[in-house]
């Protein structure tokens, strides 16, 4: 699943660690999501949407 996490994070000038702390996961997890190697759970996807103040579909694209 594609996502805009890296772009959104860069727009806010957050580091991976900043974002990780905001959603309560490790920096490695943020890296894995950004690189498309890991699709987050629904609660984590909602958490990410909340910190960016966006809807989930504005961050994640299932690509179908």
């Amino acid at each position, binding site marked *: 699943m594609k996502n805009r996490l890296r772009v959104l994070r860069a727009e806010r000038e957050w580091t991976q660690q900043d974002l990780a*702390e905001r959603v*309560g996961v*490790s920096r490695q997890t943020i890296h894995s999501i950004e690189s498309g*190697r890991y699709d987050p759970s629904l609660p984590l996807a909602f958490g990410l949407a909340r910190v960016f103040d966006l809807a989930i579909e504005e961050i994640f694209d299932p690509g179908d």
Partner: protein
Amino acid sequence: MSIDTKGRRGGLLAAAALWAVTFVGARLWIEALEFGSGWVYVAAALPVLPFLGLVAALVRSTRDADELERRIQLEGLAVGFAFAILVLMVLGLLEVGVDLDRDNFAYRHVWAFLPLFYLVGVLRARRRYGQ
């Protein structure tokens, strides 16, 4: 919610080190004892408590871990458990038909492969998720 990765790893390493020291100590002690001595049972029991401490540290670590780390641990356990069954199944079958060399295929040799399989599973999962 914060992830105390360093503290978690420190506790795990300390528990693993304590277990390793008691295991090596027990092994050396047993080798120094006369074969069949009653003290062998005492020595063999020595690493049990430290190992349970290691298990407790692992459980705490998993509870504190985020969802991706839990998935990695689960995949590691799945691979480790599956390969453990595979090895024990093959050795069990062989044992029915041939005399397995006790100097190469005894419990003291086989058990060490089980955590190794788990580690391989964890490393494979970390690689898959780019960690």
